[in-house]
C-alpha cells in the first residue's frame, strides 16, 4: 500500500485540526485535499518513480509537498536546509533531479536548470476530486533521506513504503499514541526523527504543532498555548532547555510524554528530567536513518533504574548485540548493535558497495558498540568509528565524557582522539563550562579524572568552548571539533 494511503487509512474526522502553526491550521480535509491536488499535478507533469527534491523548513508547504510526492508514486529526496551549495549541486547532478520543491527562503541556493516550485504553486493548483494513487509496490522507494554525515560523506538512505509503514506502526504502538495526541514538533522533518513525528501523528488521527521558534525556549510557551501532549528532542534540545531556560521548573501541564533520541544524553540530564517531571513519561530511544527512524526504546518506568540504557528493540525489530564471531554477547561483554526487521532500509542511494558493508543477510550493522545487563537491556559504549586508539588501548569516549559531565560546573563534554606521534592518538577533552559558576578549571577536571579513571583514559589536554559546533541534525559535530583542535595545536606545535 502507498505509504500516504496507509497514513490516512483510519482517518475519521475530516474537520479535525491536523497541522497547527502560529497563523492558523489545516484540517485533515484541507491537508488531504491539497495533497491530492498536488499529487494529481505531479502525475501529469512528472509521471511516477521520479526523484523530486524537497528543501524546506517545517511548514505546511513541506508537509503537503512531501506527502504528494510519495502519494503520486514518486520519490521524495529530502535535503537539509543548511546544505552547502557544493553538496546540493552534487545531489542534483548525481540523482538526476529534474523537479524541485524549494521554500522561497532558500530559492537562492538553487541555480540549476530544473523545474523549481515554491509555495506559490499550491494555491494555483486545480481542484481534483478523488485522486487515486497509482498501485504501489511495498518495496518501492518512497523517500531518500540524506544522513547528516557526522562520520563521513553524505549518504542517501532509501526507505520504502513498507519501511515507513512498519516503523510508524511500531512507534505508535510503544508510545501508545491516539487521536488526542498533539506533538510539539521542533525537530526538522527532513531527518528521520522529525519525519517520524509527522508520520505517527497522522496515522493515529492526532495533530502536529509546527513549533518554529527563533529560540528553542519558545517550545515551553508553545506546549501550554497549543495544548501539546508530546515533545521530542535530541540531546542538545534538552541540554539547551535545561541550561538556558526555566524548563525544569515549568509545569508543562498538557504534556503527557517527552522523548529523546538522536544520540546519548548524558545521564545527569536524564536524571534531572525524570526527577523534575515524575508524572510524565520520558522515553529514551535509539535509532538510525538506515532503520527508518527507531530501533529501540527504554520504558519510562525504567529510565532511572536502567539509567543510560537505550532499552530493547521496539515491536517488529530484532535488536541484538553480536560479538566478532556473529554470536550474541553475554552480559559484560562488548559487541556491535545489529537490527533486523521490515524497517531496515533498502540500501544507500546508488551505492551498493556501502550498502553491502552495513547490511549483511538482512541484518543492519549499526557501527555502535554496546554491552548488555543481566536482563538484556542494551547500553551503548561508543561508536566504532569514534573509538580512540591510544598506546595500544581502544578507548570509548563515552565513559570519559559521562564522568567529566558529572563534575559540578561542567555543562557538557566531548572527548576526541587527536593524532599523536607517540600514542597514535591522544585523548583530548573539550568542555563546556557552566556559565553561572564558571569556577571549573583544567586542573580540577584533570585531578578528578586522575582520581576516578584509569591512567590511559585521562585526557592529555582539556579545551574549553562556549558552544559546541552542531551539524544540521543538531548533533555535536565531532569532526569539526577534532579539526579545530588539530588546527590550534598546529599553530603552537603539537605537544
Amino acid at each position: 500500500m502507498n505509504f500516504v494511503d496507509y497514513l490516512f487509512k483510519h482517518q475519521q474526522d475530516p474537520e479535525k485540526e491536523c497541522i497547527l502553526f502560529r497563523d492558523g491550521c489545516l484540517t485533515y480535509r484541507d491537508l488531504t485535499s491539497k495533497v491530492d491536488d498536488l499529487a494529481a499535478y505531479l502525475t501529469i507533469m512528472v509521471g511516477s518513480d521520479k526523484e523530486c527534491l524537497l528543501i524546506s523548513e517545517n511548514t505546511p508547504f513541506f508537509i503537503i509537498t512531501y506527502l504528494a510526492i510519495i502519494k503520486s508514486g514518486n520519490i521524495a529526496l529530502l535535503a537539509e536546509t543548511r546544505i552547502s551549495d557544493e553538496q546540493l549541486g552534487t545531489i542534483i547532478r548525481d540523482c538526476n533531479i529534474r523537479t524541485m520543491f524549494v521554500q522561497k527562503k532558500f530559492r537562492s541556493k538553487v541555480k540549476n536548470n530544473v523545474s523549481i516550485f515554491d509555495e506559490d504553486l499550491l494555491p494555483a493548483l486545480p481542484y481534483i476530486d478523488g485522486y487515486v494513487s497509482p498501485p504501489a509496490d511495498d518495496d518501492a522507494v518512497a523517500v531518500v533521506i540524506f544522513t547528516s554525515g557526522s562520520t563521513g560523506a553524505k549518504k542517501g538512505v532509501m526507505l520504502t513504503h513498507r519501511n515507513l509503514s512498519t516503523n510508524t506502526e511500531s512507534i505508535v504502538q510503544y508510545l501508545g499514541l491516539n487521536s488526542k495526541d498533539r506533538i510539539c514538533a521542533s525537530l526538522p522533518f527532513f531527518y528521520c526523527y522529525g519525519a517520524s513525528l509527522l508520520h505517527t501523528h497522522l496515522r493515529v488521527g492526532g495533530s502536529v504543532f509546527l513549533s518554529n521558534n527563533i529560540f528553542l525556549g519558545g517550545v515551553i510557551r508553545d506546549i501550554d498555548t497549543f495544548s501539546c501532549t508530546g515533545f521530542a528532542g535530541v540531546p542538545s534540545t534538552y541540554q539547551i532547555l535545561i541550561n538556558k531556560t526555566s524548563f525544569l521548573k515549568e509545569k508543562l501541564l498538557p504534556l503527557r510524554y517527552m522523548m529523546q533520541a538522536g544520540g546519548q544524553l548524558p545521564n545527569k540530564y536524564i536524571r534531572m528530567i525524570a526527577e523534575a517531571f515524575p508524572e510524565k513519561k520520558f522515553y529514551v530511544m535509539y535509532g538510525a536513518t538506515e532503520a527508518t527512524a527507531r530501533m529501540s526504546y527504554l520504558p519510562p518506568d525504567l529510565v532511572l533504574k536502567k539509567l543510560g540504557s537505550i532499552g530493547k528493540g521496539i515491536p517488529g525489530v530484532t535488536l541484538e548485540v553480536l560479538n566478532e564471531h556473529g554470536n550474541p554477547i553475554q552480559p559484560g561483554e562488548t559487541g556491535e548493535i545489529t537490527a533486523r526487521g521490515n524497517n531496515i532500509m533498502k540500501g544507500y542511494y546508488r551505492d551498493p558497495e556501502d550498502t553491502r558493508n552495513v547490511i549483511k543477510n538482512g541484518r543492519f550493522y549499526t557501527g555502535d558498540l554496546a554491552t548488555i545487563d543481566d536482563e538484556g537491556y542494551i547500553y551503548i559504549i561508543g561508536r566504532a568509528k569514534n573509538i580512540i586508539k591510544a598506546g595500544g588501548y581502544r578507548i570509548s569516549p563515552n565513559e570519559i565524557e559521562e564522568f567529566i559531565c558529572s563534575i559540578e560546573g561542567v555543562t557538557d563534554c566531548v572527548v576526541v582522539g587527536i593524532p599523536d606521534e607517540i600514542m597514535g592518538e591522544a585523548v583530548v577533552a573539550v568542555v563546556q563550562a557552566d556559565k553561572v559558576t564558571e569556577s571549573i578549571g583544567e586542573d580540577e577536571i584533570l585531578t578528578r579524572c586522575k582520581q576516578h579513571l584509569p591512567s590511559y583514559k585521562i585526557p592529555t589536554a582539556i579545551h574549553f568552548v562556549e558552544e559546541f559546533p552542531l551539524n544540521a541534525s543538531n548533533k555535536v559535530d565531532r569532526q569539526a571539533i577534532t579539526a579545530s583542535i588539530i588546527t590550534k595545536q598546529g599553530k603552537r606545535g603539537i605537544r
Partner: protein
Amino acid sequence: MGIPVDDVTDTTAYNSCVQWDSLKHLQMVAKFEETFGIEIGMDDIIAMENYGKVKNILIKYLT
C-alpha cells in the same frame, strides 16, 4: 553569520535570512551576554526577530 555589514538593515530578519538560523541566534545571544555582561530574558531572546528589534532590546538592557 557571514552577512556583509552593508547588507544588514533594521528589517534583516530571522524569517527571511538563510544564514540566521536558530543555532546562530543562540550563539549571537551568548555573545551579547558575554560582551555586555548581561543576561537576556527568554521573552526577549524570542522577540529578537529582526535587526531593529535586536538593537532596541539591547538598548533596553544597557540603559
